């Protein structure tokens, strides 16, 4: 492994300055469960890892009436161990509680899961269906990017040299909102999704005002499917949900690899889209 410096940044400005100084040879570092593995495997050749866990903004975890602010360095367990947050965001708990095992969840978080930009990242689709906005800081100040536009390829994102994710801004669910994430894995825990789907719905009575469906591990990035749009204005019926699930399945562009074949993944996306839409509708009805 190439020897690198460890920079414990105390502010966003300090972190950005350290990242900018080293360009592509520096990376932000939070949970370390991807960064240290990449560095050790020689996939990243680094001169510095910039620890962003000691910055107030990256640790923010604040549930407001209109917005939930989730800092980039917040580990998974803080989402599901908070009674308030887990009650408001069961769809995020679905993801945060299956990213690795307990050891990983002590350190890894939804922010790092997003930045790692794996097509199979369990947290990314859940963030997308919650209409998450990503706040990024860099040498030229802050900018915001929609979570569905964040990943640009396997392991690649809109984060440029000198930039870092600061926080995720997630709309606080209104009455009638529900979301869910499910994946298919041979093992229940500590596994990587063969395919995964997150869905969300906003209900008014039994009418779907809006919906989002996002697909994991079936393309070079997580995919925001048009299946959600197809449900807008329709009743939350089994037939309508099945039709939307078919659309999700048709929009999957999987490859065959050691985890599964393209055919299996296409099928799984349909099943998971139906199940997560049904679960999201159930949760939306409970949240009324």
């Amino acid at each position, binding site marked *: 492994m190439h020897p690198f410096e*460890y920079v414990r940044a105390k502010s966003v400005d300090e972190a950005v300055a350290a990242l900018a100084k080293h360009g592509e040879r520096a990376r932000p570092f939070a949970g*370390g*469960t991807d960064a*240290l593995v990449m*560095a050790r*495997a020689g996939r990243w050749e680094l001169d510095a890892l910039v620890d962003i866990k000691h910055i107030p903004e990256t640790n923010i975890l604040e549930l407001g009436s209109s917005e939930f602010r989730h800092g980039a360095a917040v580990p998974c367990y803080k989402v599901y161990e908070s009674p308030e947050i887990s009650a408001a965001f069961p769809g995020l708990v679905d993801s945060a509680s299956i990213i690795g095992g*307990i*050891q*990983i969840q*002590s350190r890894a978080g939804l922010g790092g899961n997003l930045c790692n930009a794996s097509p199979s990242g369990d947290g990314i689709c859940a963030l997308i269906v919650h209409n998450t906005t990503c706040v990024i800081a860099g040498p030229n100040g802050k900018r915001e990017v929609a979570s569905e536009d964040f990943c640009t390829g396997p392991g690649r994102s809109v984060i440029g040299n000198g930039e870092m994710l600061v926080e995720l801004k997630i709309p606080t669910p209104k009455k009638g909102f529900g979301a869910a994430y499910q994946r298919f894995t041979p093992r229940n825990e500590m596994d990587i999704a063969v395919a995964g789907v997150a869905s969300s719905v906003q209900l008014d009575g039994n009418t779907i005002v809006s919906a989002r469906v996002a697909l994991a591990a079936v393309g070079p990035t997580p995919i925001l499917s048009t299946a959600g749009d197809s449900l807008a204005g329709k009743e939350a019926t089994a037939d309508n949900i099945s039709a939307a699930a078919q659309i999700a399945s048709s929009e999957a562009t999987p490859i065959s690899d050691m985890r599964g074949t393209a055919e299996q993944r296409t099928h799984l996306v349909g099943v998971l889209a139906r199940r997560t839409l049904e679960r999201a509708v159930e949760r939306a009805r409970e949240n009324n």
Partner: protein
Amino acid sequence: MVEKVRVRATLNGEPVDFLVAPYVSLLDTLRDELGLTGTKEGCNDGNCGACTVNLDGRIVDSCCVLGAEIDGSTVETIEGMAEPGQLHPLQQAFLEEAALQCGICTPGFLISAKALLEKDPHPSEHDIRFWLAGNLCRCTGYDKIVKAVQKVADSA
């Protein structure tokens, strides 16, 4: 040339003050710098849990933590699990239930199980299996490990 950094932490209840290269994992720091070889290296990429230690009250894979990161923190390893010459109830139960064969995964399982019982003294079998999913064992088939943890939970 990357310079070593100074780290001051609490390790198994004792203050430690040492220098470590900033790119060295906590696992290698414990084993090579501090001479605590009870924590084992398995996969070295955050999958197997053999290197599990307790960092500020949470279990972590020490291969995915930098030694430099623990400055100001509290770390507990298998060496601090029981008083010298004694066994922790979990260690005793692992022996009685034959919950180990080669032993490489054992320190990690013990550290994880201790954290579980501190959080929840009476976990169900499902809770135990779920909590220990981040610890892999290639010898026992897990049943004996789960039984050993249940034995301690039942007697608490």
